[in-house]
């Protein structure tokens, strides 16, 4: 698949990187463009970024021809790789001038078919390349040289530079001529990557890429986790696509670390329930750790690097140990603990490192900084090594992963759109505060903010709904009030705050509402929901009893 299946609007928080890469490769048209490697953890969106770049280069300009290639592990014999690489390049290059999408997916095209195509397009350079390639049938390495040099040859012949985008580039180290991988073959990319008219942008498994000398010479462009805005946009979009509403608990968001793949797995699973609440999101996460696409993706990595079942078990045990060790471990220590030779421990550690499961750059073994991966390893360990049932594992994660709070008490109110209905919410809040013995000052400040939130909700849903929905949740140390109402969208995407309509904006003092809410509570959030907009107010609270205790202590 060359083009991304994502809409532009669903490609969150990456426009800056995409534009940077786009401009970078377009440099090849006017000057020399430099090759680079996209680095980032698994699931962060490197492949998606390459696809988006290819799509943009293919459709939005005609100065630099894009070529996107994914290294196929089934085509690593030099001859198969060369043929596949060259044929795909020629199809994509010939498709580019007239944007012929159908030509991009001509996978099974024969050399004769390609000749005919080149003839039809009067692409003499392409016919020459195919002719030279055909003559090298008995010399696979020569054929590989021709294939890898094809983008540069076409650039020289046509004057049009080529941006070579290669995904899963780490697999190149598996290229072989006689069955045994020959890492030296990867060096043949070096010259091609150095040409200013054929900038290469490659990506793949970072641990393996770092071990490829040809990649180490390239500039590294990090693909970072999504920021808070990108994360929130992505979640909103996923929820919308399932016509669900809800918000991922902040602690779980921190767990997922802005990794788009992790986010998608968890939110998608949680959306099986119409309007997932906090508990549903945590349960979805736990199920993902145990048997969802999230867990399966890491399990498949383990299977690739440890095809032997017994070795895989040992590798899992070692990984678990490394993730739970309070200090970095050496191969010698691993060997002693697991009754292995140092060489066996070293081989396993090396494979774990290349799989991206641990850090081991200088022979010291540490866990990677990925909380989700750690919990997937725990889930596998419980199931495969401790033979725990799914129910037992779920119970384990419910008690260790989900924050253990005191009782969460929730009150829901539906207010009619009548005059001074906001006072019902404010006075309800006061009563809740009294019943739960909450700090009166904190509740008083929250009341002020709630009044403003209700007024805002009523103003913006005028004529579009007849109720305002107020929900109050109280746990050990926070009080959260959400105020939801129907109405046209009134959130400014950039700021996440409501737009002020012109009529209100003319009235002096209007617009103070948000300022006031922010002044009196600890956090104010605005969310688009299916029915309209929700304002969420969060206030830290203390129990009055605690305050009294503290007062007494101070007096003493």
């Amino acid at each position, binding site marked *: 698949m060359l083009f991304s299946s994502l809409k532009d609007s669903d490609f969150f928080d990456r426009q800056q990187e995409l534009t940077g890469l786009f401009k970078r490769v377009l440099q090849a048209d006017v000057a020399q463009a430099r090759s680079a490697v996209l680095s980032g953890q698994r699931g962060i969106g490197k492949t998606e970024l390459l696809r988006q770049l290819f799509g943009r280069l293919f459709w939005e300009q005609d100065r630099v021809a894009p070529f996107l290639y994914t290294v196929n592990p089934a085509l690593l014999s030099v001859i198969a790789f060369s043929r596949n690489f060259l044929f795909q390049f020629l199809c994509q290059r010939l498709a580019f001038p007239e944007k012929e999408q159908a030509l991009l997916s001509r996978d099974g095209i024969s050399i004769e078919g390609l000749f005919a195509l080149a003839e039809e397009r009067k692409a003499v350079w392409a016919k020459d390349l195919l002719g030279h390639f055909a003559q090298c049938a008995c010399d696979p390495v020569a054929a590989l040289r021709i294939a890898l040099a094809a983008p540069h040859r076409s650039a020289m012949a046509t004057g049009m530079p080529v941006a070579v985008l290669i995904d899963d580039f780490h697999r190149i180290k598996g290229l072989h001529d006689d069955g045994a991988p020959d890492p030296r073959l990867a060096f043949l990319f070096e010259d091609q990557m150095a040409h200013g008219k054929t900038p290469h942008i490659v990506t793949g498994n970072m641990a393996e890429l770092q071990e490829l000398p040809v990649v180490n010479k390239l500039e590294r462009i990090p693909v970072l986790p999504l920021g808070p805005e990108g994360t929130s946009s992505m979640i909103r979009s996923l929820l919308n696509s399932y016509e669900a509403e809800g918000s991922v608990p902040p602690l779980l968001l921190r767990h997922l670390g802005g990794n788009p793949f992790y986010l998608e797995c968890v939110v998608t699973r949680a959306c099986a329930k119409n309007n997932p609440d906090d508990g549903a999101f945590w349960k979805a996460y736990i199920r993902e750790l145990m048997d969802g696409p999230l867990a399966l993706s890491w399990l498949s990595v383990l299977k690739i690097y440890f095809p032997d079942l017994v070795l895989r078990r040992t590798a899992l045990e070692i990984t678990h140990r490394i993730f739970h060790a309070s200090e970095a471990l050496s191969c010698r220590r691993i060997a002693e603990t697991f009754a292995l030779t140092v060489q066996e421990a070293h081989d396993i550690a090396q494979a774990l490192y290349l799989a991206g499961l641990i850090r081991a750059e200088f022979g010291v073994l540490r866990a990677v900084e990925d909380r989700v991966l750690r919990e997937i390893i725990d889930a596998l360990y419980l199931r495969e090594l401790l033979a725990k049932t799914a129910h037992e594992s779920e119970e384990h994660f419910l008690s260790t992963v989900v924050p253990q709070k005191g009782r969460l008490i929730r009150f829901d109110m539906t207010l009619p759109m009548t005059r*001074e209905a*906001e*006072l019902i919410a*404010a006075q309800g809040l006061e009563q809740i505060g009294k019943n739960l013995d909450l700090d009166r*000052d904190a509740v*008083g*400040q929250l*009341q*002020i903010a709630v*009044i*403003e939130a209700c*007024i805002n909700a009523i103003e913006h849903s005028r004529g579009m709904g007849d109720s305002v929905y107020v929900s109050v949740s109280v746990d050990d140390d926070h009080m959260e009030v959400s105020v939801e109402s129907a109405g046209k969208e009134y959130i400014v995407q950039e700021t996440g705050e409501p737009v002020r309509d012109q009529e209100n904006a003319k*009235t*002096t*003092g*209007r617009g*103070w*509402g948000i*300022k*006031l809410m922010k*002044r*009196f509570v600890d956090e104010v959030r605005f969310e688009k929901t299916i029915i309209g907009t929700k304002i969420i107010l969060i206030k830290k609270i203390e129990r009055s009893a605690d305050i009294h205790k503290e007062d007494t202590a101070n007096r003493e």
Partner: protein
Amino acid sequence: MSNFSLSSKSAQDIAIMTPRGYINDIGAERLESTSEQFLGDGLKKLVVNFSDVQYINTIGLSIFLSMVQKTMEYKSLLCFTNMKKDHREIFEMAGLIKHVKVFKDEKDAFAYLNGRN
């Protein structure tokens, strides 16, 4: 029925207004018109006692702003007393507090106003 009521009185050259309950648009407009009446009658010293004010919203706050402006036009003195901390913060946020004198209670306000011509 409104959640707002207002009592007012004048003693010598000082007008005292005591709003009760919820100061929203209705409450603030009543305060504004009452203060205009006092100003029209020639009283140049106004006191608003907040002791029984429960809530103030920003619509009410915006009307307070015009009340403060009117008082300044009449070159009068406007004093607030018995303000809760949160209410004071609301006025501070809107930048109104610098145009009024704030006192702990009516007694302090009277002491100040009686010393002024």
